[in-house]
């Protein structure tokens, strides 16, 4: 009886039947062709990158004893931040009932699912033993570990997001709201736990403390809004209807506030890091201020988007689409910096002359395999999203709410 009901529930999920030919049947404009080539080359890189990894293991990566976390960790964070951000943006309409934002809910929730799947894919090739992880995560849970909480909560979050998405497809807004709210809360918990993975590192004064767990939530929201602009830009080919424009202007105004808060946060983080010259913290902060990746983050993710929004209070939607592209590149640097800067300072322990002169700063540059798998993750994310736009109706439903 129950099985019957579940079967019926699943078979009544509204999907479009598509075959491979439908997927290739996109309008052959130069823009679409370029996008298709980009997605295919990124997917090819994923295959090559994973093949090299399977052959050589972690030797294919430039991670070392002193810098055990590399690009793939940064890219994983990039994807899960995007997911949490899209979940927040999607919730504005269907959980909190802001009517203006309902038209992006389904698209954003679907985006949050594909981004986290891409994140899980990338991390599977960074964790040395992903299968062992699944077994012992349950068989011997390390409850004092921020990674345990983060991973477990993200797994739950994905489940809730999928269920919410199904209810959205079925236009059952009540159930979608319940699962959306639960998913949002679990997602926020997971995400701040990811921040605490860094915040709990007593050994690394530059990252230790309350900053990252809170900052992760703020930057997630910012990332979500950037991606919302990009998704809507592609959906409407930069030719927005009045309704979409109202929503985008609303989002842009929220974004201006959030970026201002972020600038305020980062300024004070830097000042407190440097003030008083505390060893292992002040000199690291000064070093970060001298790195171009930090300024890439500030200019691309903060200065450019904020300036363009404030110029006419978020009314130039096309320009803001491009500003969001810049923002996402900046957000990538933000994630990379977070991971790299945490490990900048050698823990030394007087190993100054052991086998080699210890570096004053730990150097790291990703290997080609790491870069290929990372771009592959992006390709996978875009491909899954594209298939989703064909299989599901991601636009706002116009029929009456059940």
């Amino acid at each position: 009886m129950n099985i019957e009901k579940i079967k019926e529930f699943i078979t009544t999920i509204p999907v479009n039947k598509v075959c491979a030919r439908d997927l290739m049947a996109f309008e052959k404009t130069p823009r679409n062709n370029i996008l298709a080539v980009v997605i295919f080359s990124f997917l090819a890189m994923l295959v090559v990158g994973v093949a090299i990894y399977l052959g050589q293991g972690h030797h294919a990566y430039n991670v070392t004893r002193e810098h055990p976390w590399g690009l793939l960790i940064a890219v994983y964070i990039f994807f899960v931040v995007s997911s949490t951000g899209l979940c927040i943006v999607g919730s504005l309409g269907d959980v909190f009932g802001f009517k203006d934002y309902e038209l992006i809910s389904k698209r954003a929730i679907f985006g949050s699912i594909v981004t986290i799947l891409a994140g899980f894919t990338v991390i599977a090739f960074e964790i040395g033993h992903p299968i062992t992880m699944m077994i012992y995560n349950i068989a011997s849970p390390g409850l004092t570990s921020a990674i345990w909480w983060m991973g477990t909560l993200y797994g739950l979050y994905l489940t809730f997001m999928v269920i919410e998405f199904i209810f959205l497809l079925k236009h059952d807004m009540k159930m979608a709201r319940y699962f959306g709210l639960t998913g949002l809360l679990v997602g926020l918990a997971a995400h701040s736990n990811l921040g605490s993975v860094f915040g709990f590192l007593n050994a690394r004064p530059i990252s230790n403390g309350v900053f990252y767990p809170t900052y992760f939530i703020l930057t997630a929201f910012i990332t979500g809004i950037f991606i919302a602009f990009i998704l809507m830009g592609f959906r409407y080919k930069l030719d927005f209807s009045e309704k979409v424009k109202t929503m985008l202007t609303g989002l842009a105004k929220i974004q201006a506030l959030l970026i201002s808060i972020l600038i305020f946060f980062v300024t004070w983080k830097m000042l407190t890091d440097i003030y008083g010259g505390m060893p292992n913290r002040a000199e690291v902060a000064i070093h970060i201020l001298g790195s171009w990746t930090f300024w890439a983050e500030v200019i691309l993710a903060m200065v450019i988007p904020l300036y363009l929004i404030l110029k006419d209070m978020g009314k130039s939607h096309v320009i803001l689409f491009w500003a969001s592209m810049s923002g996402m590149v900046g957000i990538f640097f933000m994630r990379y910096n977070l991971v790299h800067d945490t490990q900048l300072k050698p823990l030394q322990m007087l190993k100054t002359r052991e086998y080699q002169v210890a570096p004053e700063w730990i150097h790291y540059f990703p290997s080609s395999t790491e870069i290929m798998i990372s771009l592959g993750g992006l390709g996978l994310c875009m491909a899954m999203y594209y298939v989703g736009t064909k299989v599901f109706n991601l636009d706002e439903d116009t029929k009456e709410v059940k």
Partner: protein
Amino acid sequence: MARYGMALDYKNCINCKACEVACKEENGVLLGADKHRIWVGVKEIEGEYPLLDIVSSTFMPSQCQHCDDAPCEMVCPTHATYYDDNNVVRVDVDKCILCSYCMNACPYDARYVDDRTMTVDKCTFCSDTRLERGEVTTACQNTCPTKVRTFGDLDDPDSEISELLRTREHFSLKANLGTKPKLFYLT
């Protein structure tokens, strides 16, 4: 059931690195600069010739501190890092997923990746080699020509290490972090 620790009379160290070699040999640690469980740190002489500050130069043997409050154990998501019956911090290779969190969380840079098992490895106080064979010394201690190292049970008031810690002044590394190391540097 013991609580093993080690006292280091580090001023006697002559930087011969016999302990590093003995450790690799006894415990089958892989060759390569990055693959080491123990090391001898060299603090260079300060000052410009001819005004050299000779006493500023020290040799400091070090390794995993077997912290009583170990950050590596706290952050491990699968309990792969655990305290064994002798309070030695160990890694269970079957459970380690190589998330590398412990490598980032250890304030002492005591952990590295063993390429054979692709899991994290570190000093075990020779628990699975010499101690298992019934010996009472570690390889590094046994080989040291100037007898820098004293290994023993901190809970046994009659042990040599307890006696040393009662009678000699000592300090531990990065004590401010509250990790409660069980490696003690005698002054």
